[in-house]
């Protein structure tokens, strides 16, 4: 390893320049190895994609691989080398997710509309196969002749018959039977071994042997290759008109363009499929009485929650950071570690633990601090809000403490000294000098924290689940619900099942709110920098 740059204080800049120009052998080697690994992996992925015939994704993956190789193999273009991975992650984790949510918002994706129409038709047909009541159970052997699979079926009374798709069952009297009376071989046919049956399972499951010439009698099918039953579909599908007909009642279920099969009197088959619904989800967001009723209250509380959370955590974090920043404080490290502990706690777990601590009768808080008083921390509308804020303060202040400690330590000591020389009090030094300087670096983080708390699902969901409930809505929405938990309740908790389309539409609306607020705030921060700059 060439040691042109001796380790030491950052004074020797020129020698390093040299090292930049002449690519070191080790560096080159590492580059070759890593890029080789990347490419090997890319090729593996592309082979898998090729086998699955996913052409579009294959093309994208190939393009990305070529692009990455081009970026790292060419000379120069240093910025691209740094930016490429970041941009890649951005595309995968942010842009893709956003575009996908955007797409889902315009569909009816959710329970009952889960996949394509073909899948839905398939599932309905599967379910419609009903065993003919009181029909016998057949024991079957799978036979093969000229590449076509046949079922050799033994009835409980010992009658043996054979048939395949399109060839009704006919008696096979000269079949060879085993000790239990089950027919296992037939002349002119080859009996399949279990391994072969497994290897051809799709074809074998597809065998539908008409029971007789009359299709009304049903047909023989096997599910496991060793037993078969007579099935008769209760619904028949007509591909041309894309309708299901109930064979018993004659009711027709047709595709009404709403992603399900519906009869004229409004009855619908249980499985539907995903379709595009245009702006329906967005319209619903503004017209649904369940959303409109409590919307104002929820909005006000969401803003209160986010703003108070940011301010309270910042105030406490800053105070503690200041206090533990005293140069001559002993055991600073230990205090700091203790301070950061809540930060290491997963928020959802903290929510559960706190909901136990706040139990009115058995909780630690009431028993220890309030002498066993029965204070309904989580069930009184006002106290529940206070509890949520306090728990969020407990969870959030370590982050602010860390951030402020870092920012305080980076402030030049001279400013402090100068202020002291001028005879400023500690409070004045803090408010007039430290805080404004601090805000320059911390303000963007406060905005980020606001955006985070605006959508702080975990704390609300785990601590109160939005409760106590409002009386003016049929949905499960309550006094501590913020917009995001309300979206969750509306999209997943009302109606029958989950509605991902509506959830995406509502999330997009929330995203727009947060984005607008953040953009305005960031502009304000710029002004802050100008003052100080």
């Amino acid at each position, binding site marked *: 390893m060439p040691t042109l740059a001796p380790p030491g204080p950052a004074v020797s800049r020129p020698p390093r320049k040299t090292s930049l120009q002449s690519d070191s052998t080790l560096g080159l080697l*590492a580059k070759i190895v890593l890029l080789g690994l990347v490419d090997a992996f890319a090729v593996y992925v592309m082979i898998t994609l090729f086998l699955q015939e996913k052409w579009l*994704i294959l093309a994208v993956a190939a393009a990305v691989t070529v692009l990455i190789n081009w970026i790292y193999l060419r000379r120069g273009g*240093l910025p691209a080398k740094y930016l490429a*991975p970041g941009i890649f992650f951005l595309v995968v984790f942010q842009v893709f997710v956003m575009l996908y949510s955007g797409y889902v918002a315009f569909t009816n994706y959710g329970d009952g509309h889960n996949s394509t129409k073909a899948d839905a038709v398939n599932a309905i047909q599967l379910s419609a196969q009903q065993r003919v009541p009181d029909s016998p159970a057949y024991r079957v052997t799978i036979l093969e002749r000229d590449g076509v699979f046949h079922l050799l079926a033994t009835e409980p009374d010992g009658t043996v018959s054979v048939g395949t798709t399109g060839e009704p069952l006919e008696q096979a009297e000269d079949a060879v039977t085993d000790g239990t009376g089950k027919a296992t071989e037939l002349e002119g046919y080859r009996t399949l071994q*279990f391994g072969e049956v497994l290897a051809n399972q799709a074809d074998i499951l597809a065998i539908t042997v008409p029971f007789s010439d009359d299709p009304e009698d049903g047909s023989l099918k096997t599910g496991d290759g060793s037993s078969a039953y007579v099935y008769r579909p209760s619904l028949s599908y007509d591909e041309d008109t894309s309708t299901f007909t109930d064979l018993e009642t004659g009711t027709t279920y047709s595709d009404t363009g709403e992603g399900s099969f519906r009869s004229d009197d409004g009855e619908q088959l249980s499985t539907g499929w995903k379709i595009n619904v245009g702006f329906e989800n967005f319209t619903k967001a503004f017209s649904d009485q369940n959303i409109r009723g409590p919307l104002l209250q929820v909005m006000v509380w969401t803003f209160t929650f986010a703003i108070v959370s940011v301010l309270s955590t910042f105030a406490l974090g800053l105070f503690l950071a200041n206090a533990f920043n005293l140069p001559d404080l002993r055991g600073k490290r230990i205090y700091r570690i203790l301070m950061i502990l809540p930060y290491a706690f997963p928020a959802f777990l903290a929510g559960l633990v706190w909901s136990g601590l706040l139990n009115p009768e058995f909780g630690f808080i009431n028993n220890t601090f309030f002498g066993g008083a029965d204070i309904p921390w989580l069930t009184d509308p006002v106290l529940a809000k206070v509890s949520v804020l306090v728990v969020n303060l407990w969870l959030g202040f370590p982050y602010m403490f860390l951030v402020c400690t870092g920012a305080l330590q980076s402030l030049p000591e001279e400013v402090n000294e100068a202020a002291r020389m001028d005879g400023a009090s500690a409070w004045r030094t803090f408010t007039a000098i430290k805080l404004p300087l601090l805000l320059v670096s911390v303000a963007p983080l406060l905005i980020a924290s606001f955006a985070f708390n605006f959508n702080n699902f975990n704390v609300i969901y785990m601590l109160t689940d939005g409760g106590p409930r409002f009386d003016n809505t049929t949905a499960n929405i309550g006094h501590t619900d913020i917009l995001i938990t309300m979206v969750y309740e509306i999209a997943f908790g009302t*109606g029958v099942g989950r509605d991902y389309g509506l959830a995406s539409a509502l999330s997009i609306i929330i995203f727009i709110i947060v984005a607008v607020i953040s953009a305005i705030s960031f502009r304000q921060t710029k002004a802050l920098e100008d003052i100080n700059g």
Partner: protein
Amino acid sequence: MKVRSTQPTRRHALITGVMSVAVLALTACGGGSSDSAATSSTSAAADLAEGGSTTLTMWVDAERAPALEEIAASFKEDTGIEVKLAVKDFAAVRDDFITQVPTGKGPDLIVGPHDWLGTFVQNGVVAPVELGDKAADFQESAVQAMTYDGSVYGVPYALENIALLRNTDLVPEAADTFDDVIANGEAAVASGDAVYPFLVGMDPKQGDPYHLYPLQTSMGVPVFGQNEDGSYNADELLLGEPGGVEFAKKLVEWGDTGSKIINSNITGDIAKEKFNAGESPYFLTGPWNVPDAQAAGLNIAVDKLPTVGDGEAQPFIGVNGFFISAQSANALAANEFAVNYLSTEAAQDAMYDVGGRPPALKASFDKAASDPIVAAFGEIGANGVPMPALPEMQAVWADWGATELALIKGSGDPEAAWTTMVGNIEAKIAGQ
């Protein structure tokens, strides 16, 4: 720590190298098609013609996994088909199954409680199974629970229901009615032997309509009406029966502002802790809390569920079973495993031995019933009703629980609260 600007070349090479590995790894995931389950199965099937082996994938949750590991191993020995168990988080496994099956990335089989069935069928992700003559070997309620829209969709393996646990040292005699239970409990408290007359766990946010259901059914208020074949009818919500309001009034009477028989502050964990500490003669719970109670040295008896009204106290029965994906590439092997193998007495015995849940197969249950606790739970379960698997049930739980909890807390007028609840649930079911 601040990073000093040293040696850009090597650092650069390293960072970019590592990054691009990660980038490519992400291409694989992000592209969303490294479809391991499906590829392994299709390629395995191709191998098989040359004497290879088939692999089934089954999703299980951590709690049910141990009972299945042995079975999977012995199935491989017997048939050469490997069953890969993928342990998933119970809270997420149902929804993952629903979203993954259509993409082809889902498993061949999934283990779960029967009340997932309605949503599975609604989303078209499960295939019916034909139990054939084996259906008669299972307990009737187990097969009934696995039946949806007239088809059987799962192979049942275990049944669960609640019962009334009694600490025989505190109350030696069983009681039939809930009033007697309360009287016995209060006598035990009065004599200073116990602290709580009766215990049942309440979720602090959702109450617990599941545990209180037998009391409710004894007053003639089931959730849904049942068709002739025992299946539930979503159009017939029976919570609004006249007995409902009576039950609501009883909840207030038993609740925090009343006799405190049911305490909204006692969660499932607290209830268990207090019962195991011998502080209450009664605990309304399921078999899952029995081992710990016995380990705590209590002498317990399993009593019939007490009645409040004239009807029968019917608990909900939860049936665990195996479901086959509608898009399994190995449907035949999956059927072989679920229908022909897991339904055998040996398999059900083995699953009981490890998992401890009473078997759904009659022959295995009879063996397990040599344990009086299992026998008692089974007897009570025979009287129960399957938990409704209808997707509409999801709309019921939240309102039902929240309303019961509010009543237990003593807030609101019972009649108005119960009527509002029924109205809300009806609105939710209709507003699909």
